[in-house]
């Protein structure tokens, strides 16, 4: 049984049909890439899966749940983690504090515990710190924990977003253009980290324009164009698919 099943999902914004009857499945332990030209509906689909938006039609099944109509924090609680295309790192907070926010849903000390530093607060703060360092270790940012997030170079910012999301202990991690703005070395390093995260048991769905990265890392690729799924399969097959070549490169080539 697939971990995540997107079933005939459509999304309309007024007159614009951003997604039309899209279906695919994501199996546990996979790295699956979602590719397509700008405006194909990739980020829209991410928003539907992570609870930011609700599908106009169709269903998104995750484990035993229907994600439609859930809020982002509920989706996160079920095990859907995500990063953003445009970095939403908390710049003027430390790297460690950024990741600590990710432990929010895995702890529960409320207002009064915090006000009066009750035992629950103190116990959880230890766990939160420990869990955050663990997440930083997984992306190799441990020694930058004390720095202001805003001082990190772009590659490390992507890694911080991933660490923050890993701190929520996701079952599936949605990565929105993690390789954007990275040089070749950084991209290779990122591929290494993504593979390791997958090996540690996190299923990955990613949107990416860097085709070298996508082909290198993905088990399967879904291609969207104008909100429709035009192809799905292993990277090598997708590369030679005439529909895909047409969508990407136009008719001329």
């Amino acid at each position: 049984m697939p971990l995540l099943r997107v079933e005939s999902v459509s999304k309309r914004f007024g007159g614009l049909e951003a997604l039309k009857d899209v279906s695919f499945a994501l199996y546990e332990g996979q790295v699956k890439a979602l590719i397509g030209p700008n405006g194909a509906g990739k980020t829209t689909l991410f928003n539907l899966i992570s609870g930011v938006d609700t599908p106009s039609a169709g269903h998104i099944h995750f484990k035993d749940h229907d994600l439609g109509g859930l809020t982002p924090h509920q989706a996160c609680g079920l095990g859907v983690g995500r990063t953003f295309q445009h970095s939403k790192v908390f710049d003027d907070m430390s790297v460690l504090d950024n990741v600590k926010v990710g432990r929010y849903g895995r702890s529960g000390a409320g207002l009064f515990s915090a006000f009066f530093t009750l035992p629950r607060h103190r116990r959880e703060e230890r766990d939160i710190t420990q869990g955050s360092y663990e997440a930083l270790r997984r992306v190799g940012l441990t020694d930058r924990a004390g720095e202001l997030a805003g001082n990190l170079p772009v590659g490390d910012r992507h890694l911080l977003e991933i660490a923050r999301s890993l701190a929520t202990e996701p079952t599936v991690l949605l990565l929105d253009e993690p390789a954007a703005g990275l040089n070749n070395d950084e991209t290779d390093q990122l591929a290494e980290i993504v593979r390791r995260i997958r090996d540690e048991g996190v299923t990955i769905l990613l949107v990416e324009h860097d085709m070298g990265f996508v082909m290198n890392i993905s088990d399967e690729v879904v291609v969207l164009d104008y909100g429709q799924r035009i192809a799905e399969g292993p990277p090598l097959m997708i590369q030679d698919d005439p529909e895909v070549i047409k969508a990407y490169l136009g008719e001329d080539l």
Partner: protein
Amino acid sequence: MAAVLSFLKRHSAFIGFAVVAMAAPLFTQNIYYLSVLAFMGTRFMIVLGLNLLMGQAGQISLGHAAFAGIGAYGSAILTTRWEVNPWAAMALSALLAATVAGVIGVPTLKLKGHYLAMGTLGFGEIVYILLVQFKWLTNGTDGISGIPSLSLAGIDFGKPQAFHWLVWGVALIMLRISLNLVDSRVGRSLKALHRSEAASMSLGVNTAYRKVQVLMVSAVFASIAGSFYVHYVHFVSPSSYTLTFSVILATTVVIGGLGRVWGAVWGSILMMVLPEFLRQYQDYTNLVFGVMLILIMIFLPGGIVSIGGAADALRRRIGGASGRSGGDAAPEGGS
């Protein structure tokens, strides 16, 4: 011993401030000065709550006078009309303020930026108009007089010194718990949702709940301050809870420093002390505040609490030496 020393060191700013605040009445018998100090304490409570709302969670309120008004009128009405115990009246008023904050918070905190400012401003005006118009309950613009002093176990808090210690004792507790909040799971979630609601939600933070909750906390702080105030001056009228007061409160938070709990301390002190020096130019007080607000927003966006850090940065820039990264000497880590 080492543990005690490290505790003292970690909390040196708070302990130092607490000692100064509690010792102040020992140095003056002047009732006027004592009153100014005590009112600084009640003002500080409101500003502190608003600092959590605006500075930590990034949600502006231009109607906060209303919550102080609810506390003030709640205490006044309950104690003069129904002879409710003043402490019980204070608690009931705070409960009412929290309820009102919860009810108006759900719709208004969905608004952002200017819209939230307008929404809260409207709320403040509505409360003010109700205070004026519900004459059967509030006595309209004439106000309510004869509000009793607070007392407990034979201590009469109508006396300036006792009142000072009571108010500042409570204010210091509020400061302590606010500092604690900042460095906690809830505090971090407020800071995070201030910076990006989308990112915070994706990390599991129930932002809508947290925003309403911090508004309720700030309403309770303001309400308690309002209650203390009327038990000391024995009189309340709607003119104390106008839009002007709301704006002064928000200005105090910004001038003191958004984002740092200690900003509420410095802002309250400055905004209470300055008018005393400007006494003979009273007409220009608001003008001075306005100019100060503009200057601070341009040259010192972190507020006066950030003067130390800004001076360091300036010295470093002039000296050309850079060593410390993000050097920010926040007392108590109260950023």
